[in-house]
């Protein structure tokens, strides 16, 4: 998906160059302006395809939210508002640095350009770090998509499954490689390599910074809830909830996956007692075919968005390499501009995802 920028702006067919064609101008373009306009229109069209691509998921979202608002209300409680808000801020900041990078490229401020791109990369990594905490926390609670959703039981002990650790393996390896690369660049005293390795290493650190931040905030949230929960457990209302919701649950046997639950039979998985914390106007939402659907939408939307972040990180890294080579100037900054457009669109989509998923009351 990132091929656009690459194709537009790197020169090719060296043997066919006209004498008046500088290296940064591809041979089939007449002049810098044509090349720039073509790249830019190409990027906008690509963004159009992105908008329509995401529109499918927004369609599913509206459809099911409109149909079962109570499900969305119920499930949104499991999303950590604070983490969402922080990630919004991180992405907005990365948009700022990206826009600044475009300015720097035009003004030939090469060092600043590398710095700004590095900051953008770092923010992206941090965003993913926080996201990793959010995902792994949900998985530990059994908040999986669709048919894997585990109905929530208050007070149940959610063991550590090591999801977070697994999510960190690849970033860890990459960070170590970046570290080795950085040491190498120091050893060879190559300014170019330092300029490339530095930002990548920082981005690696930012990922783990994000993870740390996420863990602290998630832990706060959990203890907060646990305290609330403990208070409710002993309140007289709890036993009342017990019988009421139990009977409501019984009428809604889950049927999929062969685990048919007989009426009146207290299953381990689905028909569970609700406490105050999980109270909802309609007990039936806490099951695969209801809450599960919400989490499917949640994972699809944020997952596809996260894939876009990762794609963005790859192209930004590519830009850092080019920037370290001081390739950009006022006649040739199209790649930075276009990657910027892409990056802002990723931010744009998050701007909608945040209130739609996290802030439902």
């Amino acid at each position, binding site marked *: 998906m990132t091929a656009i920028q690459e194709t537009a702006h790197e020169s090719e067919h060296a043997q066919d160059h006209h004498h008046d064609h500088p290296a940064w101008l591809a041979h089939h373009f007449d002049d810098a302006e044509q090349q720039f306009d073509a790249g830019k*229109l190409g990027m906008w069209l690509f963004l159009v395809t992105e908008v329509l691509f995401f529109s499918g998921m*927004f369609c599913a979202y509206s459809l099911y939210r409109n149909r079962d608002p109570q499900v969305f209300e119920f499930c949104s409680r499991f999303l950590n508002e604070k983490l969402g808000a922080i990630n919004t801020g991180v992405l907005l900041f990365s948009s700022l640095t990206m*826009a600044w990078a475009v300015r720097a490229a035009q003004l030939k401020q090469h060092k600043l350009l590398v710095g700004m791109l590095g900051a953008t990369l770092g923010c992206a990594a941090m965003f993913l770090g926080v996201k990793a905490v959010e995902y792994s926390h949900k998985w530990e609670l059994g908040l999986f998509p669709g048919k894997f959703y585990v109905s929530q039981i208050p007070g149940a002990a959610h063991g550590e499954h090591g999801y977070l650790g697994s999510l960190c393996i690849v970033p860890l390896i990459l960070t170590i490689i970046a570290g080795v690369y950085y040491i190498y660049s120091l050893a060879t005293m190559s300014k170019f390599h330092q300029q490339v390795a530095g930002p990548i290493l920082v981005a690696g650190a930012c990922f783990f910074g994000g993870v740390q931040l996420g863990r602290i905030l998630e832990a706060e949230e959990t203890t907060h809830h646990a305290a609330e929960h403990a208070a409710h457990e002993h309140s007289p209302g709890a036993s009342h909830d017990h019988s009421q919701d139990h009977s409501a649950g019984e009428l809604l046997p889950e049927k999929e996956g062969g685990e048919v639950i007989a009426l009146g039979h207290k299953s381990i998985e689905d028909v569970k007692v609700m406490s105050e914390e999980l109270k909802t106007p309609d007990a*039936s939402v806490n099951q695969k075919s209801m809450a599960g659907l919400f989490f499917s939408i949640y994972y699809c939307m944020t997952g596809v968005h996260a894939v876009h972040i990762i794609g963005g990180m790859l192209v930004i890294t590519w830009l850092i390499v080019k920037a370290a080579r001081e390739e950009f100037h006022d006649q040739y900054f199209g790649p930075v501009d276009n990657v910027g457009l892409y990056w802002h669109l990723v931010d744009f989509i998050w701007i909608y995802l945040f209130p739609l998923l996290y802030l*439902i009351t």
Partner: protein
Amino acid sequence: MPIWMLLAVFFALLILTGLTVYQSQFDLGNAEIWLSLTIATVKAALVILFFMHLLWDKPLNAIVILGSLIFVALFLGFTLMDAEGYRENLIYKSTVKASQPGAKGDEIDN
């Protein structure tokens, strides 16, 4: 774009984010979704117009991206309108009230 403008847009975006988080603490009923969508749209507009320089860009690019929204509207509009319309023909779990013993979900009944 001058630096002050970049920073101004960034802080405006932050303030709007704060606002949307703040308003979500109140129960505004149906208005809530529209309010948060409006704020999101203002934010999106800021990003598009300033960070993405659409304000200074060729009109064609603006037409391209805004035009795509028409097709999104078409897609969502027809699909949601239809879903609204045929919903009453369907019986599914969420409409099953606890007071209807024996009612089964899942089946589509035309």
